[in-house]
């Protein structure tokens, strides 16, 4: 039976939910699924991974030099573990995208980025040109190294499995990189990737103060995550991790509000798979209206407060 290795995404304390989407992609390929947890003091993560429905084994490399999970160190660990696996997968997050190309090059195989569908164990669909051309590619390599787009694979259940946890030897510490600091955006709101409702704002909001003043009450009302266009991030209205789009986050919530966003193709690439899209823009010709289910041509500074009032 073929075996697949999924790289767990975690922060040493807890498993990130995207891992469940990566396991789902592995299930679509089919075979015995193992999950690799590389970290430091991350036994709780391994325990959580062992409970994932459909996981047969957890491989745990717990060592101090995996505390920051630098791709340099983790890649040689994955390389050392690769024998016997037909596929190595991770979620197409900042972490997965940083790590898996490095793994693939060490194994001298191609890497297949951000797949959205599995056609067969060696053939996959992936978006190119900001999602305007869906490529079906077939790999001739012995090991397929893949990142999977979270929104394209419904998460498997976090509970229900009972996999064995096997401790594995750590690989060397290359000592190439030292972490100096990490600034994680603090927010009580749902994560962009997981939110059912997203309220996104663009350059039309005009300033950081207005962005907060106008959009936060709407997001509060709907228990929504906040997102943004690149223009809003570049203008300093919000931190970079709010950016939705081709080169930011890919989202597909039940309901997406694009407010003061024109709808450049790079933005559409990140949100056009949302179930319902609402656009509020004062320019009736804004391209965002071509993908919006419900478009409201209005000044956002009047429309959004009125919308909040109407929601009651």
């Amino acid at each position: 039976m073929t075996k697949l290795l999924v790289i767990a995404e975690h922060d040493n304390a807890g498993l990130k939910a995207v891992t469940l989407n990566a396991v789902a992609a592995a299930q679509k390929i089919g075979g015995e699924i193992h999950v690799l947890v590389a970290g430091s003091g991350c036994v709780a993560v391994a325990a959580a991974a062992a409970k994932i429905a459909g996981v047969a084994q957890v491989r745990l490399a717990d060592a101090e030099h995996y505390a920051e999970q630098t791709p340099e160190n983790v890649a040689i660990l994955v390389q050392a573990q690769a024998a016997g696996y037909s596929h190595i997968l991770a979620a197409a997050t900042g972490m997965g995208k940083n790590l898996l190309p490095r793994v693939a090059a060490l194994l001298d195989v191609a890497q297949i980025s951000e797949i959205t569908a599995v056609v067969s164990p060696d053939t996959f669909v992936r978006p190119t040109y900001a999602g305007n051309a869906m490529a079906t590619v077939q790999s001739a390599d012995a090991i397929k190294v893949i990142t999977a787009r979270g929104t394209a694979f419904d998460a498997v259940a976090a509970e229900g499995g009972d996999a064995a946890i096997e401790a594995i030897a750590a690989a060397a510490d290359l000592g190439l990189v030292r972490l100096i600091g990490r600034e994680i955006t603090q927010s009580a709101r749902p994560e962009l990737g997981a939110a059912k409702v997203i309220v996104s704002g663009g350059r039309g909001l005009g300033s950081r103060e207005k962005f907060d003043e106008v959009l936060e009450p709407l997001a509060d009302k709907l228990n929504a995550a906040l997102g943004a266009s690149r223009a809003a991030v570049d203008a300093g209205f919000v931190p970079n991790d709010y950016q939705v789009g081709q080169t930011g986050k890919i989202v597909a919530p039940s309901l997406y509000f694009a407010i003061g966003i024109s709808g450049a193709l790079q933005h559409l690439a990140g949100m056009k798979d949302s179930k319902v899209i609402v656009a509020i823009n004062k320019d009736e010709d804004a391209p965002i209206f071509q993908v919006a289910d419900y478009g409201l041509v209005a000044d956002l500074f009047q429309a959004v407060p009125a919308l909040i009032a109407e929601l009651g």
Partner: protein
Amino acid sequence: MKILVPVKRVVDYNVKVRVKADGTGVDLANVKMSMNPFDEISLEEAVRLKEAGIATDVIAVSCGLPACQETLRTAMAIGADRGILVETAEDLQPLAVAKLIQAIAKKEQPQIVIFGKQAIDDDANQTGQMFAALMGWAQATFASKVALANGLATVTREIDGGAETVECKLPVVITSDLRLNEPRYATLPNIMKAKKKPLDVFKPADLGIDVTPRLTLVNIAEPPKRRAGIKVADVQQLVAKLRNEAKVI
């Protein structure tokens, strides 16, 4: 210290590509081509490091068709000192490009190679990381700030939840994110000067690199079309639709 900047010739970011009816690719006839926007950012960073007296030489490298010479001339107009074209008509995939850049790096011995985070045609986001693996170097990807001192690169990186700062020993690979800088425009005098800068051409075989694709393109298709919905008259109608028709609130 030399800095190498790989630059890719891609369909201009303003163009919405069309998929060919026979599913063999996208239609590139008469389509505007430009330097990958992330590579402009990398070049700008390299040129600033030269202007700051930290770098001595900025070398732009492009792999692909002879037309990539135009991209290299643009790079030299922005401030690269010279250009290298690895010329081939083969469909180049990230692993092959990483190996070609590795061969060039062995010749040129740069201390820093600045890739773009992602090429906006294949959206792979792989080549810099692959090159770093082949060289055994540190990789500071998705960079929004770079500082160099005492043989160390201090790089702020955009990560999923925010940002982090890492310190890497040289030699290092950096991949540029959008907010690293705002690239300058090439001025006319600099465009003229760029025409006289050296541009070397190699073939993959000259470098001893096999660039045979590992992935076969089975088919290219348009994504499912999303139909435009309706315009609502006011927020009352919007909320009614969201409640009763879409049932999402």
